[in-house]
């Protein structure tokens, strides 16, 4: 088990999930509850990152954030170095890649809220943003949970984007998925099994923790 890679992976997955929840919840709210006709186009666009193979997405990011584009040059001027092959670069790539998994379950949840709750909150004087935060979001918490779990797990297993954008620098961009891949590529199956098992175990425990809470919560119902 590569402890450095494990920590890096958990850090990447956590930050990506946090960033995505901050981005995805308002976006999902706008898509599900907004009135602009534009949102159907945006909704289709949001689903797009996943149709590109991750490696290709990674490649476009590599080029797009690199010194060959204006955006990339701006970033380089601001940071002093390109985003590629840095941890922040991985975060950008992972956020983009997992965006649909974070947005869509929440949109679906919000769409099926009984509108009477939202109306009641409005007539009591709550602003749209308060209605969204205090009523809509709590009502779809199981969808938010699903979105967060999918995002987190998906980032833990993320490979293609990291491979292209990361360059496999231990401690900085070499995630567990890369080192696991390396172990398999290097015919070091014992180590690979060990890593994979550990990954599965840690994830199972994390997930049981997430879902196990419902196990107790649900008991209070009739």
């Amino acid at each position: 088990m590569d402890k450095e890679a494990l920590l890096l992976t958990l850090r990447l997955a956590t930050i990506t999930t946090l960033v995505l929840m901050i981005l995805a919840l308002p976006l999902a709210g706008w898509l599900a509850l907004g009135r602009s006709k534009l949102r159907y186009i945006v909704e289709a666009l949001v689903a797009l990152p996943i149709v590109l193979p991750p490696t290709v997405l990674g490649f476009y990011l590599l080029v797009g954030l690199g010194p060959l584009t204006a955006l990339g040059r701006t970033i380089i001027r601001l940071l002093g170095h390109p985003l590629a092959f840095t941890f922040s670069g991985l975060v950008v790539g992972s956020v983009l890649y997992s965006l649909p998994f974070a947005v869509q379950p929440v949109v679906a949840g919000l769409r099926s809220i009984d509108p009477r709750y939202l109306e009641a909150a409005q007539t009591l004087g709550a602003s749209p943003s308060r209605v969204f935060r205090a009523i809509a979001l709590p009502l779809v918490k199981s969808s938010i949970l699903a979105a967060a779990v999918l995002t987190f797990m998906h980032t833990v297993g993320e490979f293609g984007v990291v491979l292209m954008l990361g360059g496999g620098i231990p401690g900085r961009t070499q995630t567990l998925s890369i080192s696991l891949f390396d172990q398999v590529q290097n015919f070091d199956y014992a180590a690979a099994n060990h890593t994979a098992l550990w990954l599965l175990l840690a994830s199972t425990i994390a997930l049981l923790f997430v879902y196990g809470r419902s196990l107790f919560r649900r008991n209070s119902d009739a």
Partner: protein
Amino acid sequence: MLELTLQGERGRQTLEVHLVIKQPWTVLFGASGAGKSSILRAIAGLWQPPATRVLLDEKDISHLSPDRRRIPLVTHHAALFPHMTARENLLFPLKGESTALADELLQRFQVEHVRDSKPATLSSGERQRVALARAIASRPRLLLLDEALSGLDILLRTQLIAELKNWQADSGALILSVTHNLSETLESADEVARLEDSRITQVGPAREVLSDRREHLLHLLGN
């Protein structure tokens, strides 16, 4: 004072309603499907047909969104927020103001025993009372009740009507309610408006407007 001029399609009919409310408590009476709930929704801003004008205390609020109008509509469904306890529901419109008021309202509406229960475990009458208290907590100028008292037994209803009238006397707020219950109407209404054939056909004291129903009821009661 509320003045409503409404014109809007509803199902097969077109509502054309002009309604002026000056009395503290007005009951809107009409057959099922006549358009009563639609009128209340239009006043609250939840239904905005184009040619509608709503004046509240001479102020034109026609173009305000429901949250800017702040006219709570309590329906039989109650629409208590399911993830909050009864007390948290009351605190919602109070926005962190003194929780004492919330507790006082819970008591006045006789639901202090379910203070910390979630709506799913309340009886329907309890839910209605919490919803009423929550609406009062938002300190509205005008309160809309759509069969909001129909889930209560007669004695409790009498007490709550008195409670609501007290509140009106203190705050000067108006109530416009819809009910099919004659005794509820007789107890509460300062004035009754009758909705028939998509129009308001009669406005006046309950005994006059509802004299035919009253006969029917007296007959039932065996007098």
